[in-house]
């Protein structure tokens, strides 16, 4: 094949590759632009419907976890979320170990934090190991005089939630009433599950999965890889073709 024929063949291949890849270029450009400005567009804080998440990702809300009734308030856990009276609290949490009332509202203990809430469910403070909280909290309870105790790593710890003081103590004379989970109302559980399911997949995540091909699983990833190889060939053949014309 002479040089002219090779050049014509190269041009023909380049044109066909361009046509084949045009749709993918548009898709990648649009999804790329959306990802570039995801915060501004708010797609990182907007979520796809639970139905869509179930169909395309196979994700469903987990069962609601332990539910604690504290002074007429209900603290329910599901996944990495905590709900107070059906309203989701900001932040991510591990499973609660119990809750008690204290001077300013409610104190909810997880394995490594104590979340202090007002009776209206507003977060007062989150106590962590930074505040001197012991690790591996197993349960939280109170004595009849209102003193608050933790059981952490098999030790009894007396707690002052205002001073953030945690002092290993002997078993008090008065019995400690340890917080225990209570059954959850079916309607509340459904409401919480539906709300939680609606926050599992953000639009940003969906756009990213379209951009990378992962929405279609391994097939989609391979397809995007092939398109990337195609774009590379397009660039190389295009530049080579241009250089040959310049060379004449």
């Amino acid at each position, binding site marked *: 094949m002479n040089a002219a024929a090779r050049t014509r063949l190269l041009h023909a291949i380049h044109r066909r590759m361009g046509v084949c890849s045009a749709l993918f270029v548009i898709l990648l450009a649009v999804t790329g632009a959306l990802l570039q400005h995801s915060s501004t567009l708010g797609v990182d804080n907007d979520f796809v419907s639970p139905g869509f998440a179930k169909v395309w990702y196979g994700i469903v809300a987990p069962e609601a976890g332990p539910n604690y009734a504290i002074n007429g308030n209900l603290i329910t856990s599901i996944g990495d979320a905590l709900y107070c009276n059906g309203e989701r609290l900001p932040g991510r949490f591990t499973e609660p170990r119990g809750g008690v009332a204290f001077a300013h509202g409610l104190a909810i203990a997880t394995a490594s934090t104590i979340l202090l809430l007002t009776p209206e469910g507003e977060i007062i*403070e989150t106590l962590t190991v930074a505040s001197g909280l012991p690790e591996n909290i197993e349960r939280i309870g109170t004595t009849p005089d209102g003193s608050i105790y933790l059981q952490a790593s098999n030790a009894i710890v007396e707690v002052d939630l205002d001073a953030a003081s945690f002092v290993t103590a002997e078993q008090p004379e008065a019995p400690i009433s340890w917080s225990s989970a209570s059954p959850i109302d079916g309607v509340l559980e459904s409401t919480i599950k539906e709300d939680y399911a609606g926050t599992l997949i953000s639009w940003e995540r969906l756009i990213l999965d379209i951009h990378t091909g992962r929405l279609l699983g391994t097939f989609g990833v391979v397809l995007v890889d092939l398109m990337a190889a195609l774009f590379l060939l397009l660039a190389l053949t295009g530049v080579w073709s241009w250089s040959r014309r310049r060379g004449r």
Partner: protein
Amino acid sequence: MRIGFRFLIKTIALPLAVILCFAASAAGPVIAPGEYLDRIFAGAVPESETVWMSGETKAIATKILGHKPDFLRLRYWRKDAMTVWVIDEIGKTEPITFGLVIEDDVIKSAEVLAFRESRGWEIQHEFFLNQFQGIALDSDRNLDRPIDGISGATLSVRAITRVSRLVLYLSQTLSS
């Protein structure tokens, strides 16, 4: 001009390889708050105190942060004219834990104790954090010096800027 293989390697492939080497995200080490306080107070950590977000304080904190504070009570540690604050603020989606030392209503030092985002980790470097030393609030409750941002870390830079303003403001309320 003919463009050969060597030209393509020199002008495209090599620079791309160099850029990709630096592009990988690298969250820094986590500094436990207890360890941070021990270092700042040389082992003699005082009892903590708290400041409540209520009324005017809460309104101003909301304005500074651009959102309602995620807490109604913030804990700090005080020794003489120095206060030390450990505070979380969301960068893009995850909380970043900051440690700030304030003395005489001026930032003495700022550190990132824990960085949980996938990008923007560059704010942990000294070259960036040193900008906060000696910074105070102006009459509009903004920082009295501009902070040079870092490309690709805009949200993280904004987070530490907001937190610095808030902590300086709260420090002023304690002084008054």
